[in-house]
């Protein structure tokens, strides 16, 4: 397994996440796509951290830890927004949320 394999795997994960964000209509399915993209980024950091002769190998790990923490915060906010949209609409499709459209 070389560095290229890991980078290509993370590219596949990112593209699938991108597809989910653009194609799906359910808000939770879009959130799943965002999580996939965040994980692809984490995998990139860890792979470069391991395969390149870095000076301080803790930096890549810290990046991943910070990404995980930010993802937790993001999911908390997003799920509460989804719940309040459901409470107003009884649906969570993105096509229904258009009050702010100009």
């Amino acid at each position: 397994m070389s560095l290229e394999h890991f980078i290509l795997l993370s590219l596949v994960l990112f593209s699938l996440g991108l597809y989910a964000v653009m194609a799906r209509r359910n808000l939770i399915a879009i959130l799943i796509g965002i999580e996939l993209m965040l994980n692809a980024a984490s995998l990139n950091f860890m792979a470069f951290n391991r395969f390149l002769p870095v000076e301080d190998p803790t930096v890549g790990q810290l990046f991943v830890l910070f990404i995980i923490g930010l993802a937790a915060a993001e999911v908390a906010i997003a799920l509460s927004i989804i719940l309040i949209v459901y409470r107003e609409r009884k649906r969570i499709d993105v096509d229904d949320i258009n009050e702010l459209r100009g």
Partner: protein
Amino acid sequence: MGGITGLMMALAVAGALLAVSLKNVLHAIFGLALTLLAVAGLFAVLGSPFVATMQVLIYVGGITVAMVFAVMLSTVVQQHAAESPWRRAGAAVVAVGFAVGVGLVVIGAGLPDGPPPPMIADAWSVKQVGHSLLADYNVVFEALSVILLLAIIGAIVISRRDPEETPS
């Protein structure tokens, strides 16, 4: 290392495919959990069991469960109107175009081939991670703490019902 790593990579891609293709959102979340577990295994292979543990604890144990709760609270009717084929085709074209473009760049970039350099046990230890986190990068650590606190308060404020609102 080769066999197990390849298996985990295959599991990650399979889980991601399930996550983006299944109609039922609950099943899609289980696909996402499979991907997250496989990525955690890859983190362990890449030399950091600590980050792998955190990935399992926070992502699989926390975020996935929270999403399952949200589905159960919000999706009474499980089936949704299907996405229009045009929308899916457009998204697939953009995603495949992105993958091919970036893939060509990655293959042509001349990344170093071959096995990783040997690990220095001291530099990769959890002790070193903790030292780095609280000495060199403590400002980032504190900022992330504040962000998490704000996210918790924000989630409570957003999802609270108004007291005078009649419950529906």
